[in-house]
């Protein structure tokens, strides 16, 4: 289902984005909180995140925040991944 969001067709992506506006993303997680990845919003960045193991259905845990709040680290597939908040925002969580 998230595959659709990886299409080049802008409209569809925007549509998806609107639909998910209310949904919780990794950006909103508290330190120590766990969640399961639902989908990735940004097609291009999604590819990068997939390669790093952020596959929909994978459990992740919010690990830490930089002193200024951005970037953050999460634990995915048993390793620590660092990313910026605007990157974290594109990872949506299952409710």
């Amino acid at each position, binding site marked *: 289902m998230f*595959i659709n969001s990886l299409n080049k067709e802008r409209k569809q992506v925007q549509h998806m984005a609107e639909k998910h506006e209310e949904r919780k993303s990794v950006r909103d997680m508290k330190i120590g909180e766990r969640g399961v990845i639902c989908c990735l919003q940004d097609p291009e960045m999604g590819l990068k995140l997939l390669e790093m193991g952020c596959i929909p259905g994978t459990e992740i845990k919010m690990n830490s925040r930089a002193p200024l709040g951005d970037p953050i680290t999460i634990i995915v597939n048993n390793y620590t991944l660092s990313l910026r908040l605007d990157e974290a925002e594109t990872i949506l969580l299952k409710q």
Partner: protein
Amino acid sequence: MTVATQPEIKPAERTSARPEEVKIALIGNPNSGKTSLFNQLTGLNQKVGNFPGVTVDKKTGYSQLTPAIRAEIIDLPGTYSLYPKSLDERVITDLLYDPTSKHFPDLVIVTADASNLKRNLLLFTQLADLQLPVVLALNMVDVAEQEGVKIDVELLQRELGVPVIPMNARKGVGVAALKIVMTQQLNAVERPFFTIPADLQPLLQSIKSRFSLSNDYLALQFAHQYKSLKFLKEEDLAWLGEQLEAADFKSNARQADETIARYTRINELLLDAVRVEKAEKDEKFSNRLDQILTHRVFGYLIFFAILFLIFQAIFAWASYPMDLIDGGIAALNSLIQENFSGPLVNLLTEGVIAGLGGVLVFVPQIAILFAFIAILEETGYMARVTFMMDKIMRKFGLNGKSVVPLISGVACAVPAVMSARTIENWKDRMITIFVTPLMSCSARIPVYTVLIALVVPDKYYLGFLNLQGLVLMGLYLIGFLAAIFSALLLKVILKARERSYFIMEFPTYKMPRWKNVGITIVEKVKAFVFEAGKVIVAISVILWVLASYGPGDNFEQAEQRALREAKTEGLTEVQTENRIASHQLESSYAGIVGRSIEPVIRPLGYDWKIGIALLTSFAAREVFVGTISTIYSIGEEENVTTIKEKLMAEKDANGDPFFTPARGFSLMIFYLFAMQCASTLAIVRRETKSWMWPAAQLVYMSGLAYVMAFIVFQLFS
């Protein structure tokens, strides 16, 4: 070692006949111990070259596998997959997809971090699907075991269908076994890890036949990446574009599908081969350490303490070996001059050897800075620096890692520019390199010192605030602000070649590998001495010729004139010598240039004498003081106080003191902004692999210097 056998001859032509020298490519995720393994295999037998068009160095090395077989090993940039996300990673696809490439490997060694096998295997399965002969170097088995990850190597080997060598590249464990496997005939993996969807077959078959490829996955890679493959011709690109259009090929979606399918397959494979009896992650040492090292208060305090230490080291500690080198060069020169004479000897001593000295004198600073940087990288602390600084630095178009080059720039821009190598993103790195020379380096100190002594009164405010000290601090501050705002300007001007990501593995803390630290130092020093050194020596020689020769019999006339003056004024022998040197410099080519640029620099308050100093200090700022001493007949041995007194006595055409505060500040500001350093220009060329960047820097900084000095002179006078 059991190797999956397969009778087919498809890509096996490459492996069938073992030549005396085999080509081996080393590839793997960042932080998977690739560099350690490369160092273990090749030792100091390494060569650093260029990949065309990218800034990443091409590191090759040789390893004697058996007395008869030698391996040429190429170290490829770290990557997470065969779909490059940065310009530097494209080197990999250019090399692996082009069988005619000079470096096309006979064998690929994939390094994988055993404690993080799942993600590391993604790249492995892609390479295996290309049907290249592959060996998996299962690295950091010890770390994995500590973390409760147990790997059944035999089973993994059977499932992957390639030799798997458990190793610890840091300690050299497993290297011997790997070398044995490297000498064997290896076959490609038969069964692909990723089954290409059937609906793509027509497209892939036509790509295969056009480019006579034997492998489906390679054809798929062509479809995905044809635009960035450098070896494809214009008409091939057009043809591929049409084909993909016709087949309605959606690259992004297909790639996403592929990555998910690969992860699914890897999960299946690892189900039996890897058992994780993990301790809770939070308890891990790295996480506990991070609570202090990235703490909102202590984190920055510790970081600034480390920066201060680095600054101290390149500023103070390096001065001892630097003085030794300076002294050694001077002693060598006087030894030669005492025993030989003539114009060629002068060229050798004052041109070539002095130029060489100017190169060698930077070696201690470079070595010390890179010892620190290598340790910070090796331990994983550099990732924390980036993590803590990213938000602030990003506002100025810089990167968390720009902090180290900027701070090092206060000591010397040469090692600082080299240290920007750790910044992966092209745009961030170029901006960092561009603005670093604006930081006031140690070579500006002699210039500042003389000029401040000349025009700023030695007054104290509130009993401890020294006015001269305040001015010096102000100059450093202006340099820093100039760097930051130039970065901001470039952030707007420069187009990003690639998206800037922060998505990367946050490495765990490790003990530094001293061998890697040592090799880094040797590599950086060599790169500087051999590549930047050539330019610096050449420019030094040119400047020496300009300052030591004049047209016609100018020099003899100058000497005669000085002697006549000496007679009428009753000068001592030393004063006469100084007068001759002054008049000769005045009538040299440098003097002529100095006079001819006088109209240009007059609005800044400078005369032709300063013009000569600007020219001779083009290679190195500190030369300014020496030239000024010569031109005002002060002599070489004088100290700041004497220079100051002589310069203060200097009168302009109206009989007023020449060095007014306006002229002094104008000169300080000029030296603050101007790119008066051939070494930096040479190193920027080396690091950016283009003359465009140093040229832009020269124009920008000189322009800025001119405008700022003009404003200052007009304001103060």
